[in-house]
């Protein structure tokens, strides 16, 4: 009997590629022989656009990269410009950044957890997560006036102080959050079928993960402790007491479970940041026209998907000469083609979902 492989084109329009992403699968029955990932359908040339805008004008563009955690994208860019100009951000601003940044991380992880539940076939978990993400968005709306693309960060601080009604709402949310996480654990993580589908599927060994530059929950699921907030604390993260959850096997289940654990840790950080929120200005003394000196800076922060880096080159004018974003989703995807080989179609979805990519960030 002669058997033949066939090509299955998954995407760019497919329910589980989390956006416009295409994978060309060569299949033997249901088993993947070869996979080719084709990103780029959402490429908007943000790096090029940034070269024609002034420094503050770039901030709204960063929102559109990882639109699920826009605050963290803002932060990465702003951190690089501040490093370039040598600006000391006031303490209160740093604390506010931590609070909104961690809220953004929670929102992003909630989407990751919820959509992963859909990928595996359980639709209910998705709505539970989105129900609670709504509360985070409400909070961030109070702060910035927007629900998705916040543009809340400014070079040298943040746009506005936290409103007074923010704190009781946040307090209530943080109070509920642990029990909500228990709910997800009960509904999704603890489910036998879910575990059968994800455990020991798509294993990434730690050395390979490091070699391929994977960061964020995907790297930590393989048991590598690399969380910038812990190993190279930026901003005021060295003042907070929190743990970095690590996985053991580096499989889909670990990558998933780690995100729920990180939500719990983020809640801890926010709680401490709110308690320790100092009084003071929210903006550093920054010239009206941002004109960094000739030079360059590369800054990294820990976004919800991994290490988000920003490389800014200045030629002394009001417009950046070159901006490059190190997008964690993009680099995390680099290993996908090898990772998929030998798994079934259903596992392709499980693996891709567990990497938690955002196409806005991949394609930039």
């Amino acid at each position, binding site marked *: 009997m002669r058997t033949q492989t066939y090509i299955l084109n998954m995407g760019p329009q497919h329910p589980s590629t989390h956006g416009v992403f295409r994978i060309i699968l060569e299949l033997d029955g249901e088993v993947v022989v070869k996979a080719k990932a084709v990103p780029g359908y959402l490429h908007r040339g943000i790096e090029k656009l940034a070269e024609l805008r002034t420094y503050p004008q770039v901030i709204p563009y960063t929102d559109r990269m990882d639109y699920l955690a826009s605050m963290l994208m803002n932060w990465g860019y702003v951190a690089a410009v501040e490093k370039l100009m040598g600006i000391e951000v006031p303490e209160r601003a740093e604390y506010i950044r931590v609070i909104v940044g961690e809220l953004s991380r929670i929102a992003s992880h909630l989407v990751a957890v919820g959509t992963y539940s859909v990928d595996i076939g359980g639709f*209910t978990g998705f709505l539970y997560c989105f129900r609670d993400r709504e509360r985070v968005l409400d909070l961030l709306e109070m702060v910035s006036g927007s629900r998705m693309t916040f543009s809340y960060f400014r070079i040298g601080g943040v746009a506005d102080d936290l409103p007074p009604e923010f704190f009781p709402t946040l307090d209530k949310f943080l109070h509920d959050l642990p029990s909500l996480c228990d709910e997800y654990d009960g509904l999704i993580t603890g489910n036998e079928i879910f575990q059968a589908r994800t455990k020991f599927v798509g294993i990434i060994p730690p050395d390979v993960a490091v070699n391929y530059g994977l960061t964020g929950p995907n790297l930590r699921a393989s048991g590598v402790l690399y969380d910038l907030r812990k190993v190279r604390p930026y901003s005021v993260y060295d003042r907070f007491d929190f743990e970095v959850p690590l996985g053991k096997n580096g499989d889909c289940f670990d990558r998933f479970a780690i995100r729920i654990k990180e939500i719990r840790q983020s809640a801890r950080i926010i709680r401490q940041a709110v308690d320790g929120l100092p009084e003071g200005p929210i903006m550093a003394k920054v010239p009206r026209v941002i004109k960094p000196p000739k030079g360059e800076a590369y800054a990294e922060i820990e976004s919800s998907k991994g290490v988000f880096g920003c490389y800014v080159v200045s030629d002394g004018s009001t417009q950046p000469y070159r901006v490059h974003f190190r997008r964690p989703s993009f680099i995390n995807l680099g290993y996908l083609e090898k990772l998929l080989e030998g798994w079934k179609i259903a596992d392709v979805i499980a693996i891709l979902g567990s990497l938690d990519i955002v196409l806005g960030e991949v394609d930039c």
Partner: protein
Amino acid sequence: MGENLFTGIAAWMRTALLDIGTPPLLSEFIVLLVKLLAVIIFVSLNVLWLVYMERKVCAYIQCRIGPNRVGPKGLLQTVADVLKLLGKEIIVPRRVDKIVYLAAPLLVFVPPMMAFAVIPWGNGMAPVEMNIGIFYVLAVASLSTLIFWMGGWSSYNKYSLVGGMRVVAQMVSYELPLVLALLGVVMLAGTLNINDIVNAQRQVWFVFAQPLAFLIYLTAGISEVNRVPFDLVEGESEIIAGPYTEYSGMAYAMYMLAEYANMMVVACMATIMFLGGWLAPFGWTFLPSWFWFFIKVYALIFLFMWIRWTYPRIRVDQLMGFGWKVLVPLSLANIFVTGVGMYVYRAIGW
């Protein structure tokens, strides 16, 4: 009063027809036709209601309200959906096998409708009395495999093809434990006649005599109707919609509605075989027998919906492994134990 409502109507019709001088055979035939027509109309309307029920149940499980705009409490939502779908174009892609492609959604309602013909909806309310009823239902129900495969094969789409292949693999392997599970009941009842099986449960429902068979039947039954956690056929996050990928408009709706009709068949069979059919529990005969039948069927359907909106999807190799390595041996063991048990009981003179 309700007990003899439907049988009374049938008897009245028969006498009326005989009174106006119709030959007995012809009047018998006309009554049968009316009965079958009634079943078809009932099943079609019931399917609409089941879609609504599914949406409501799933909404409440997911902390939502569900359809609530069209009609009172959103009751007419499915009607509106069907009307909308009727107005949509049925797109026939260029390279599909047209005849098979269009025949599949037409035929998809046939197996469940045929199965409904022998279901006793109440005491003496089976449209067709058949002494090999169980055998007939199983034979007819397994036909739907073919129709899904027709849709998957003719669509000229790889997702449909994968879905179609999954249908065949899944349905064929779950047919076996399904039948073997029912065999235990048939052994106890000693008949293939559906009415006799129901009547054999006057003392004790077979769910208590055959608990393992009941569980196997439910699992295999859920798999037969392609519902979560065994909805690999249409696994939307993997292969879009399996065999239905290329269908649009009413052709697509036919598949979706047939799923509910099939679910109804499975629930009816479970009720008949294990839950005492139309028999009232604890002698509570203040409700008519057909009412009891529906209570049991809807309880089972609710269970299916509950499972669907709680569980994720199993993977194809796990599905096959579970079917062949767990369900088939278990159902065989069940038959063995049942046989030995019957022999022992008979030997001690029970």
